[in-house]
């Protein structure tokens, strides 16, 4: 045992004996592990936010489709849904896309009936929109930044409506930390959103809340409703119902899918990593061979030499993984994922104006250590073994 400890200590010494090789290996591992840890951390953060989106949302989401394409539904559907047994509320909602400004900034317009607004909210700096002569909106933080909007700012007409266009006023800005998905939002009343899209009397979907235990029965009833239940849609309409449970399953499945994506990335990085470490080891091969030759000449056995290399690799991989975790944490926490967050979250600016959600967890950290170890071992153990099995005289030559 004492002998093993002594050999292990020389493994530690070997790291300092070759600082350039150790430093290059450490840098290569950092280049591989930091993006991996950042990506996994961001994925975990988004997962938390998505779970909240499900919890606070409706039980069922009802939309319509015709010829396989999604179509808006008439708002008259609302009362028809509300009379179904087990339905508590059926709120029409408009969610649409447009672009604003010279830079064509992407905007998500969301409209909810004003009577469904809570009396007071704390997630908005300013106040909630009202119906009136002016279109009123609460905007997301990224949108406000890109379009230089403050509370009280006016927007000239940016849409076409046969009934005429109105000036819009910004009455509030969402707090930056409430959600990732508020950043490009333009939130108004249902009537305002309908006017913007010139789609009066139509809704993108209905957010349905049910009495506990009635979700499936209500879903079945809605799916059995057919064209005569949807006046004004001008043809056959198929109702699509998406349930909260269905999305919860999707979220759990998404985790697996996410790992699939990361596995693909990691295969690429892994291949590059092995090449880098092999090159790094190869550069010091003559030196390593001489060193091993000297050790063999002084009585070291091949297994002791390999054990020494193993300790060296373990220390390098653990140290590099630990450093990677620190770098990932600092990058996400204090630099808010500058440059890198946009790689993992589509549509995010180079310097995100919202706090990037993240959580570093033990499993990716453990994987980082393991994979770092595999890479360093692949790079150095083979060359050590090749040098250790030749006669000392030849190795030292």
């Amino acid at each position, binding site marked *: 045992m004492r002998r093993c400890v002594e050999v292990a200590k020389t493994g530690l010494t070997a790291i300092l004996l070759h600082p350039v090789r150790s430093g290059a290996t450490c840098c290569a591992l950092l280049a591989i592990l930091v993006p991996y840890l950042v990506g996994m951390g961001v994925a975990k953060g988004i997962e938390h936010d998505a779970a909240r989106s499900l919890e606070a949302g409706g039980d069922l989401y009802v939309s319509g489709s015709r010829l396989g394409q999604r179509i808006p539904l008439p708002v008259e559907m609302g009362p028809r849904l509300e009379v179904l047994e087990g339905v508590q509320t059926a709120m029409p*909602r408009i969610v649409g*896309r447009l672009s604003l400004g010279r830079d064509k900034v992407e905007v998500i317009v969301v409209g909810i009936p004003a009577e469904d607004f809570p009396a007071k909210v704390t997630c908005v700096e300013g106040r909630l929109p009202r119906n009136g002569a002016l279109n009123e909106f609460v905007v997301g933080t990224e949108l406000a930044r890109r379009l230089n909007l403050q509370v009280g700012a006016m927007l000239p007409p940016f849409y076409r409506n046969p009934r005429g266009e109105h000036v819009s006023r910004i009455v509030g800005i969402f707090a930056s930390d409430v959600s990732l998905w508020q*950043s490009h939002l333009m939130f108004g009343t249902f009537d305002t959103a309908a006017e913007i899209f010139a789609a009066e009397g139509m809704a993108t979907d209905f957010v349905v809340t049910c009495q506990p235990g009635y979700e499936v*029965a209500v879903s079945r009833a809605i799916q059995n409703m057919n064209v005569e239940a949807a006046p004004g849609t001008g043809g056959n309409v198929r109702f699509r119902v998406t349930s909260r449970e269905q999305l919860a399953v999707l979220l759990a499945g998404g985790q697996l899918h996410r790992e*699939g994506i990361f596995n693909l990335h990691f295969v690429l990085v892994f291949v590059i990593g092995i090449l880098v470490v092999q090159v790094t080891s190869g550069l010091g091969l003559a030196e390593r061979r001489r060193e091993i030759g000297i050790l063999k000449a002084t009585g070291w056995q091949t297994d002791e030499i390999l054990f020494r290399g193993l300790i060296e690799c373990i220390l390098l991989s653990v140290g590099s993984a630990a450093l990677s975790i620190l770098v990932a944490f600092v990058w996400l926490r204090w630099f808010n994922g500058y440059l890198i967050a946009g790689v993992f979250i589509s549509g995010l600016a180079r310097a995100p104006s919202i706090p990037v959600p993240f959580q570093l967890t033990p499993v990716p950290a453990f994987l980082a250590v393991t994979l770092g170890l595999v890479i360093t071992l692949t790079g150095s153990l083979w060359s050590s073994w090749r040098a250790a099995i030749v006669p000392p005289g030849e190795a030292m030559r």
Partner: protein
Amino acid sequence: MAMPNQRLPRCVWFGVLLTTMAATVIVLTPIRQPSGDLDVRRTEFQTLVGGLGFGATVDLAHCAFSFDPRLQSSCDRLEGPLAGGYFLCPNHVGRAIGYPALDPTDFHISAAAGEGDHATMR
């Protein structure tokens, strides 16, 4: 058996130990747990908009599905039968989170004994 010089500078030991301990603390401590007020605000926002946002994208530029599958049940650009067809949509290339397309027919109804209906995925 002769041993090479085993003396390591203390600062190296200290640095490695400190880094490893700090990394351990980071991964074992839940970070960014929202405070009570923040938690309320976040829930308030989601309630206000009726539940919005699910994926790793912040706008509807390329595909609404990757923003929220409640808005679109699948991505228009996914070409599954093609090798690598999943990655034809820019919102699905290397993003932090991904999920399979939502098939409405997957929402089937099964009766569980004594509990009524349950929604499950096939």
